[in-house]
């Protein structure tokens, strides 16, 4: 049905990974076709309008990607990327306190200095960008290279730039150990550990101290100014990447689900669209490579026929541990603006004429509360048993100061739409009462959420609440099939699924058992999720090695990258 087509590269999935990969490869002069099953691209980088004119960020909501080489390599500023700076933009030095059950507890100077040191800000000169890039924007080493302290990129950076911090234990300790050594207050440590857990590598897991720490550092860097977000939200950021791809000739097709990756003689040669696709059942041939920018399950259990993969590999794919919380998202429509309870009401924690509260994490009292929450979600795996007073949660950054958001002009007759509030809950795949449990319990979950958020906020009472929109992990996955199990950051970022083992050895460098088939998704290789533009950057090194991509002068490899023997090096100059 219809004409078959031929491109150099076919990419399945137009989320941030698929689109960034398309932008890179199109800039190399390759013909690229991106296929997206939904009517809209963007994946998790989505903006929603629960009421006309008022936008919220239901998924990706934080700017983790600021050190990414992609901004300059793809010239995103030329494609309209802008940040909307928080009006009280301030660097770390002005973040004064954290929300605890007894009110705001101040952050100490030691907290800030310790944190700054961990993030490379106290080097002479500071080496933050180099450190972040070493941690996330560098492909794992080739299989023939044994991973040692001397070649783990972040280890090398600390060793060279901050030798007093350097010790082998950095690769074995937990983030909390690290914070105990460098920072001071308990609430600071608890908050950072929670932020790390929500981002993918928990604060109490051994062996991931630095990745966990640096991941949270990405949010507190001075150039993200108190959790400022891109103009137009994360979807606005995505738009710039999309434009970068399309302006160099990438072809993006929506409403085109892929049914099968076509394989001949062990090599991926193209894809076949589903009969119901907008371009119905067509075959799209790939001269050079097929890149699956969808989750591991779809890619290997559905799109690649079983006969092409050995059963051991298939089992490993099924066993990849997602065991990681998913986030339960709530947005509230209330008659009056939500207000901070008197214990926490401060001028520097409200924004704009409507005094919209913005806070970070609550409650940060101690690591015991943090452990209690982790144990309940990752351990017990059922309905929440942590009492609402101790359930930890966080709030997405407000957007009301984005001048292109209509919210500011909307009269109070409409009521107020909050930003998203989130709490970690057990992923549906692991819930001991079954996959549908969370959805069955939705009313109870909603009530629990309101009780928890109501510890700190007034305005969630029945007589003020117009609507409570909520999304469970399953809802999120239903909308966006790539977010398997509702996971927000890809598979578990623990020691066993890290770096050269992520998600499994065979997939760690983005290659797959099928020649010409690569994998670029948060459930695939290093570093996982969070819209970092990292996987595509890392994948580029591999595509250069395999002779698929030949970028121009604008390309530079990671300084810590080790070329695979027998392959073309991705280094330039």
């Amino acid at each position, binding site marked *: 049905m219809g004409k078959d087509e031929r491109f150099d590269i076919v990419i399945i999935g137009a989320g941030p990974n698929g689109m960034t990969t398309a932008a890179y490869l199109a800039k190399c002069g390759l013909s690229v076709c991106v296929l997206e099953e939904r009517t809209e691209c963007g994946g998790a980088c989505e903006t929603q309008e629960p009421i006309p004119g008022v936008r919220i960020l239901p998924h990706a909501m934080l700017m983790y990607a600021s050190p990414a080489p992609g901004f300059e390599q793809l010239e995103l500023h030329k494609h309209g990327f802008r940040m909307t700076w928080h009006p009280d933009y301030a660097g770390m030095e002005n973040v004064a306190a954290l929300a605890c059950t007894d009110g705001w507890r101040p952050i100490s100077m030691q907290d800030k200095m310790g944190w700054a040191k961990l993030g490379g800000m106290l080097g002479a000169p500071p080496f933050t960008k180099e450190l972040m890039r070493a941690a996330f924007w560098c492909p794992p080493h080739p299989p023939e290279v044994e991973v040692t302290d001397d070649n783990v990129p972040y280890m090398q950076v600390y060793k060279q730039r901050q030798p007093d911090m350097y010790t082998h234990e950095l690769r074995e300790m937990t983030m909390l150990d690290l914070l105990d050594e460098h920072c001071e207050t308990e609430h600071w440590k608890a908050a950072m550990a929670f932020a790390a857990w929500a981002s993918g590598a928990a604060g109490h897991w051994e062996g991931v101290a630095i990745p966990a720490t640096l991941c949270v550092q990405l949010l507190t860097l001075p150039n993200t100014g108190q959790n400022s977000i891109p103009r137009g939200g994360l979807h606005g950021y995505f738009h710039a990447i999309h434009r970068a791809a399309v302006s160099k000739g990438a072809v993006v097709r929506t409403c085109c689900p892929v049914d099968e990756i076509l394989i001949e003689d062990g090599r991926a040669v193209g894809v076949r669209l589903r009969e119901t696709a907008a371009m119905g059942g067509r075959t799209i041939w790939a001269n050079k490579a097929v890149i699956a920018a969808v989750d591991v399950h779809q890619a290997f259990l559905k799109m690649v026929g079983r006969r092409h993969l050995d059963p051991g590999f298939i089992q490993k794919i099924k066993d990849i541990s997602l065991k990681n919380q998913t986030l339960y998202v709530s947005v509230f429509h209330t008659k009056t603006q939500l207000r901070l309870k008197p214990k926490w009401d401060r001028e520097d924690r409200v924004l704009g004429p409507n005094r919209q509260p913005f806070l970070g994490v609550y409650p940060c009292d101690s690591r015991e509360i943090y452990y209690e929450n982790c144990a309940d979600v990752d351990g017990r795996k059922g309905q929440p048993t942590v009492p609402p007073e101790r359930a930890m949660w966080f709030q997405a950054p407000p957007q009301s100061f984005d001048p292109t958001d209509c919210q500011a002009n909307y009269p109070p007759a409409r009521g107020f739409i909050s930003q998203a509030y989130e709490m970690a809950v057990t992923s549906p795949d692991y819930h001991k009462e079954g996959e549908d449990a969370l959805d069955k319990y939705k009313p109870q979950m909603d009530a629990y959420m309101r009780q928890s958020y109501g510890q700190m906020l007034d305005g969630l009472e029945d007589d003020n609440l117009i609507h409570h929109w909520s999304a469970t992990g399953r*809802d999120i996955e239903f909308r966006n099939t790539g977010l398997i199990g509702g996971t927000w950051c890809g598979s578990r970022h623990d020691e066993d699924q890290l770096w050269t083992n992520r998600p499994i050895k065979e997939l760690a460098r983005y290659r797959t058992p099928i020649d010409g088939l690569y994998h670029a998704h948060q459930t695939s290789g290093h570093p996982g999720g969070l819209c970092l533009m990292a996987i595509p950057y890392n994948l580029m090194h591999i595509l250069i090695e395999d002779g698929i991509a030949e970028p121009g002068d604008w390309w530079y490899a990671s300084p810590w990258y080790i070329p695979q023997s027998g392959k073309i090096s991705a280094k330039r100059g």
Partner: protein
Amino acid sequence: MAQTYDVIIIGSGPNGLAIAAYLSKAGQKVLLLEKRFEAGGGLATEQVTIPDFYHNTHAVYMMMVDYAPVYKDFGFEERGVTHIYPELQVAMPLADGRALSIYRDVEPTCASIAKFSKKDADSYRDMQRHYDELMKNILGPQTYVPMDAAPLMAAKAEMTELGRALSEYTEKSPEEIVCERFENEHVRTLMLYMACHWGLDYAQSGVSYMVPIYLNRMANYRLTKGGSHRVSNVLLKSTFEQGGQIRTSAQIKHIIVENGAAKGVELEDGTRFMANKAVVSTIDTHQTFLKYVGEDKLDREFVDMIKIWQWEKWSLCVLHLAMSEPPRFKAADSQPDLNTAFIHVLGYETLAALKAHWDAMSEGEIPVGAGYNCCFPSVHDPYQAPPGRASGLISQMAPFELKDGGSSRWLNHTYREEVAERQIALLQRYAPNITRDKVLWTYLTTPADIQNKFANMVNGSYKQGAYHPLQMGYLRPNQDCSQYRTPVKNLYLGGASVAPGGMVLFGPGYNCANAIAEDFGIEKWWTEPEYITAAKENGYV
């Protein structure tokens, strides 16, 4: 630090997108600026209820797919964007179980009308034959060429039989036209609704040449497969491929005018974009001239003309629905294909009830039990809802200013729930299977929401202004701007507030792109459609 382009376009609705696409492919360096975060304007498809239910939150019924040059010029079909053209276009089920049905084809329609009145059936056949002629020869071509001044247009009309026939319409009101042609109450009701619901005053003469257009287009509605937003996707992609730039989330501060000429645009954040050739505004004249150019840069008389622009008398209150199943109309018992109609008109059991709806709106009210049209896109395009489920919309004419409480009452959540419940209750009367529990989620867009979301749709004016005789055709928006150039040199208008008007026509955009190409000697890569050349040769336009 400024960046320079050939042409800067403000507003990325269908017209802005068309201009960007035409000119970028003609080798011009084009920048398209959009205030909102998403391009496409009214060409929007969004998941506003439950994941996987897609809703066309503004433009749904595409009525000029067979006439607008953009579809062929940009290879929509080749790019995989097609339109569904349901056999049964409009159905009006009645409480007594009968239904009046308008099909693509004339004969089945006549058969349906004959059940109400044989005379009306013949009259319909005759009408569509005549209107087809009018559409093909005059009304269609007129949409895609600049408007002539009234005397010239009248002169041309005098020279041909068809022209003379069309002129007669202008003397009559839509109600007169419909009632002269049809005798049966229900036929009259449906015809008058379809002729006027897009914004014509049923009792006013002067723009009734729109009646043949709307009644002819009534059998020509199409649905974009995959959702209306796909139409904007094609134009966006073409623009990108040709090196055009689009900036979303870009708030303008002013249009830079120096020595009486438009030189560029400045954004709120200070970024300046300069235009070597033209600045085009596809948004309304108030924002364009009063806000972004500034009264101090314009003649007093011109400013007065701008200020008397009339916004629309009524807008739409639309309820989007995620449903567990599609509606099964009671009237389908006697007419099995009824459930496959593209549009269902419900609730107007008499002509008086229909007129009462319009009359009430001028008092700021909607009558209890007021009717509407509804559409269930997933019935025709399974993409738009999960398997077995249904997505739908109920589109009801509604005033902007409400008698009690003004326009802010639209934002009151209690009132919104009432409105939604009433609309669903009416649906249930005609399609009893839609009990309240079958409606999984709703999302309401009211006239106040439309204004908030689209700053150019003041008072919810989705055509950017009333279809009043004094501001249509050569007078839209006024005689200084209706040919797309404005008193400010190099500033062009290309949106719904310029001739021929609003809806997804691509008329203003196409004509504006032509005007710019002519003024700057830009070689056109696109050729005039045959039907327009023929109409010119025959002296019709």
